[in-house]
């Protein structure tokens, strides 16, 4: 048996090192845990400063003792390799673990333990935690905006129909399959427009008219992003083709257009659509606020989509163009049947990212006075009956947006992987 050298733990006395190291490590964890969950300071007999740093010091010593290379114990080797390669890493590991332990109780107590969800008024919220009653009462407003309560079924029905129609592509028989692109690019948007125009907006077919100013909340976020998504794609495609065109005027106009929109912030574009654009229209011509916003955002995003598609076009080898031309295909035939199908497949992840940015940009429409979910939150926050619940509202909206955006980014990552392996 070798002499114990605590500065250099080795394999021979592994049990001693392991037990003492783990003991110190768990004492450190226990100290932080008790302090955080039960407000008990087991080292209160020590001076303040030492008591504060003690878990860190104990943890470092503990992790140092169990840092034994090739110990032969699988789990220990795995642990050392992943969180305990050297002292610096050990410190960072401990800090992260301690921060986690310290931050769990306040978050839990705010969001669940001390929170309220019962009742209908502000007075029901007595706890020191979050007041989810506020979200519960305002939920309809956050989702439907100022849309009349008794008419909200119209929004529900159109959204359900739209989602159902979007899944048509998943049940293809061979005959129908070739028309799918046509369906998604032309027919589906038209159906969507008809649904939204007649069902949500109303005004005909015996349905009461609801002005767009009353639309709002999450449903407006979806409507705006949906239409912008549909419109910006073809515009962006033409811009990308224009930028790669051999005709100088077309090319310069496309370049100018793209660089202009990419160079200005969306908020000024929306300003333009709300205060400057009406000046450019004939006097008696009225264009709805929502339509103006959708046009503005579509043009803005189209420039970004154009750059993404251009990347795809550039990535195609020249041989594809040459081969298509040698078969006697003209410009449009070549692009529709050979170039674009391949190029678009390449840039699907990039386009998904642009759409993600689009969804994250929709809250900006508050500039022109349209209140989607973030705008509704700001409105609800200033309601005299419900003052002081800004935090709950923003946390709620953040969770919703996070789920939407995270799902989208995950989906785009999957697509990226899928198309990478296929090539």
């Amino acid at each position, binding site marked *: 048996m070798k002499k114990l050298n605590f500065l250099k733990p080795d394999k021979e006395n592994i049990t001693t090192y392991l037990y003492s190291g783990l003991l110190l490590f768990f004492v450190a964890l226990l100290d932080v845990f008790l302090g955080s969950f039960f407000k008990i300071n087991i080292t209160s007999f020590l001076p303040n400063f030492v008591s504060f740093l003690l878990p860190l010091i104990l943890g470092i010593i503990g992790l140092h003792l169990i840092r034994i290379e090739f110990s032969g114990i699988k789990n220990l080797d795995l642990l050392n390799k992943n969180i305990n390669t050297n002292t610096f890493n050990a410190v960072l590991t401990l800090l992260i673990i301690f921060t986690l332990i310290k931050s769990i109780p306040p978050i839990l107590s705010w969001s669940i333990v001390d929170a309220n969800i019962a009742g209908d008024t502000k007075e029901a919220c007595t706890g020191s935690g979050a007041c989810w009653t506020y979200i519960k009462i305002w939920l309809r407003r956050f989702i439907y905006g100022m849309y009349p309560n008794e008419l909200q079924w119209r929004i529900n029905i159109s959204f359900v129909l739209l989602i159902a129609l979007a899944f048509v592509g998943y049940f293809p028989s061979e005959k129908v399959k070739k028309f799918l692109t046509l369906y998604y690019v032309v027919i589906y948007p038209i159906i969507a427009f008809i649904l939204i125009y007649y069902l949500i907006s109303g005004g005909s077919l015996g349905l009461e008219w609801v002005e767009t100013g009353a639309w709002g909340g999450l449903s407006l976020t979806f409507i705006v992003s949906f239409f912008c998504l549909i419109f910006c794609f073809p515009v962006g495609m033409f811009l990308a083709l224009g930028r790669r065109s051999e005709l100088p005027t077309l090319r310069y106009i496309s370049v100018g257009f793209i660089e202009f929109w990419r160079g200005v912030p969306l908020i000024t574009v929306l300003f333009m659509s709300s*205060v400057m654009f009406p*000046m450019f229209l004939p006097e008696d011509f009225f264009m709805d606020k929502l339509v103006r916003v959708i046009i503005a955002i579509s043009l803005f995003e189209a420039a970004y989509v154009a750059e993404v598609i251009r990347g795809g076009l550039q990535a195609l080898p020249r041989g594809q163009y040459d081969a298509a031309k040698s078969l006697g295909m003209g410009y449009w035939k070549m692009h529709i049947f050979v170039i674009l199908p391949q190029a678009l497949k390449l840039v699907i992840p990039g386009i998904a990212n642009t759409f993600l940015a689009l969804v994250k940009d929709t809250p900006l429409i508050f*500039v022109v006075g349209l209140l989607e979910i973030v705008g509704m939150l700001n409105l609800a926050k200033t309601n005299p009956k419900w003052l002081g619940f800004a935090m709950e509202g923003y946390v709620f909206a953040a969770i919703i947006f996070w789920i939407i955006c995270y799902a989208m980014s995950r989906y785009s990552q999957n697509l990226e992987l899928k198309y990478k392996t296929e090539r």
Partner: protein
Amino acid sequence: MNFKLNKIIPQLITIFVVVLIFGFFTFNAQINMDNRGIEFGFGFLKQESSFDVQFSLIDYDGSHSYARAYLVGLLNTLLVAFIGIVISTVLGVVVGIARLSPNYLIEKSAACYVEFFRNIPLLLQIFFWYFAALRALPLPQDADSIFGVFFLTIKGLFVPRFVWENLDIFFYSIIAAIISIIVIKNYATKLQENQGKQLPVFSISTGLLIILPLLTFLIGGVSLNFEVPVIKELSATSFIYEGGLGIPPELIALTLALSLYTATFIAECVRAGVQGISKGQKEAAASIGLTPNQILKLVIMPQALRIIIPPTTNQYLNLTKNSSLAAAIAYPDLVLVFAGTALMQTGRAIEIVSITMLTYLSISLAISLLMNWYNKKIAIKEK
């Protein structure tokens, strides 16, 4: 003949359509402006603005012109962009490197940070910091100081102000230090190429950068004092800080949100850049006997930077453009001051919106041009 027509006709049609659209718009604008009795022109810029801005880097009050108000807004925008770029770069690089760490916990927490802040709209984050987080801060009279000199309150952050004497000499000394460092660096490169000797350039330059400015304190007559903010009671319920430098909560919320949001994207750029260098490079460098530091400095970083810098500049551009969201929390940036208040007062929508857009456009184009130049400079020179 037919072949040529094929090329000319589409161009003519496009030009015709574009001219038609522009003509239609100008025609309508002319009629609309005539009806409202406004004349197109930029003369209003010289008029007295008669509105106040609560935070400005240069002297400004209501008696100054609209042009001055524009300048105030522009400087405020650039200030936010600059601070945001600095913080987000530091944070982004740290997080990006953390994502490459072999330590599982560090890698995962960095990943969580990126996934969390990237997937929440920036506007929501700004609102959160401004309306929820910063509103929870104490009132000026209740605030505890941090180290006795910083005061973080609901009215903003109050920090000591530097009081310089002979600042210009200090400034010159820094410039002198930088110039001498460049000279030494060139000399060291030459020395190494000609004689194979190596100079400790890094320690020499750090030394110069510290010693030269320090000398100005000792013999140059430069002195630096701190003016610590002191709380002052105006009435029973209203307190303000006097002296020191007050940073408004709008600026704090905006820079915080912008930096945290943009840092996630920069972190991804850094990660992609370092991952883009093949392992063979590192092994080859190690096999010719370079030390780990030299490998990082001479082999990995120059190549990684080539991948990292273009998308990162793009993020800087995005940050600058996103700083226009300041208007949402009433931080007086270009959009709020000029496209907001000034537009409301003068009603000159076309001129003001065009100026605002052109400003952003020129910032973007300037950075893009700089970027292209830099890209060309660092591109691998292949034959």
